[in-house]
């Protein structure tokens, strides 16, 4: 358990608020996008099957490329989240932990490079 005053300080810290907001914005946006894409597909299957039965490539119907698109989108959205988190969130998080909770006891392991390892920013590259 963290010291309640450290918690309160972090909750007010502008950098912490910025990190939490940025993470939650991208997380919910991408999750919403995924839900819309998937249920868009499910609703087409359920309510407009004739649309999906249109041939587009030889006998292959529109349903297959659209389904493949949902699969590719799932992987792509996941990759987008990871690249944003790696590039921005980890750094923001490390700065906050260093500054605001030096006495928190346990430093998160990803934020404390082992002796001999290159500094965090360089390890990312």
């Amino acid at each position: 358990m963290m010291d309640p005053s450290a918690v309160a300080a972090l909750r007010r810290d502008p950098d912490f608020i910025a990190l939490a907001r940025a993470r939650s914005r991208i997380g919910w946006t991408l999750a919403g996008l995924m839900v819309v894409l998937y249920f868009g597909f499910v609703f087409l299957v359920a309510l407009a099957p004739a649309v999906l039965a249109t041939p587009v490539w030889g006998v292959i119907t529109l349903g297959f490329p659209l389904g493949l698109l949902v699969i590719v989108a799932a992987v792509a959205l996941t990759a987008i989240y990871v690249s944003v988190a790696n590039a921005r969130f980890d750094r923001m998080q490390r700065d906050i932990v260093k500054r605001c909770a030096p006495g928190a006891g346990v430093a998160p392991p990803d934020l404390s490079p082992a002796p001999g390892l290159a500094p965090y920013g360089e390890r990312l590259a």
Partner: protein
Amino acid sequence: MTSAVAAPHLAVAQGANWTAIVLFGGFVLLTLAITAWASRRTRSASDFYAAGGGISGAQNGVAIAGDFMSAASFLGISALVYANGFDGLLYSIGFLVGWPIIMFLIAERLRNLGRYTLSDVVSYRLAETPVRCLTSISSLVVIAFYLIAQMVGAGQLIQLLFGLPYAYAEIIVGVLMILYVTLGGMLATTWVQIIKALLLLGGATLMAFLVLNRFGFSLPALFARAVSVHPKHLGILRPGALAKDPISAISLGVALMFGTGGLPHILMRFFTVRDAREARKSVLWATGLIGYFYVLTFIIGFGAIVLVSTDPAYVTPAHLLRGGNNMAAVFLAQAVGGDWLLGFISAVAFATILAVVSGLTLAGAAAVSHDLYARVLARGRSNEAGELRVSRYATVALGIVAILLGILFEKQNVAYMVGLAFAVAASANFPLVLLSMYWRGLTTRGALLGGWAGLVTAVVLTVLSPGIWVKVLGHPHAIFPYDSPALFSMPLAFLCCWLGSRLGSARDTNEAAAFDEQYVRSQTGIGAAGAEAH
């Protein structure tokens, strides 16, 4: 799945049986050697439940993909494609799209808050005893249904491939799984899963390549041929049964998309990596591999329509696949790669079941020993050695229960069991995991009301659905007309969580205040478990 069906098949694959048996024997020896190695490194509770947090993101990603590429999805989805064509796509996409949701909303916070189980996270700031009871019981229900599906699939497959009696097959799977888990814990379970995932990906890739090779790598040529030989003709290229029952299709979509985020054996894997960053990496690996795999199952399914359904060696005079549609992918292996590939794919399919069942059992053992024994019964006063002893007893007990359930449910339709597992996970575990991490207002009363409502509704509606009420219990009409309950039970769980939380009391204010500490930890990882060096 009677021996009368199996017999003609055995005549087909007689020569290949030995390849399969030798390859499978090799897999068992290799995995037992890994288990022996892992057992020397498995000393603490953290080692047993979470491989000491020492699995890398990429390794964990492959292991997670392995959990998902179960026999049910490899054989089951290619069978669905074989039988219905397009409709199989909805399942494969559904199994995949839960992963981005886990990534965006669950994985990092879960890793920062928990130690071994999802109950750790849900009970973080709520009354521990009743909440852990609820989440460990709902986890055990999910695991039980998932286990039955895998065990029944294993028995049918082994009966057909190796000509072993069904009960022997159950016992072999059960005993090997008990060995892996009790001796090697999460470390052995993870490596068994990784090896099997790579074998399965390799085998499926080879099969898809060989199928496409027959058609000059032209998908339209493959599909055109499939349309001309399949009894449904153009029907396999458009939505079929699912379009006739839109509510069931949407409800299934809900169960698949949100159920993944409530599967205990999957969420447990996030505690095997060092930190939130590695957790993220594992989801990306898993999503990429699972997506690739499901694309392959499509090529395999259509390949089987063309190459298996037209071959009298594989189909009965009545145009039914010998041994059932689940054998489509296995027969295709022989059709495109001969006896050697048949043996390889059979062995890999068996290995798949073994690996998935081990992961499920470990998650079940953790729910019993970590949640119910150490935290609820002993209220945190047990020592680690005692907890580990209980976890091993629990593993043996779960193994025996799995064997018995497998034998008991021999004739059951395994697809409903997997569907039920996802529906319960989406209706009981997922709302609690999500709300406990995101909603300050969630109280113990809300979590209990919502969790129990979701669990009971999902199970009861499934029993009343056509799949159980009519097909299994033999009633003329289903009381609940849809195949999947999730569209109703999951919103009900969320609603009950909200309602219960609104009926507040003084204690609940403390729970809201504790949210701040939990929130800071979930965002920053300060105080997160798993910092031990490995």
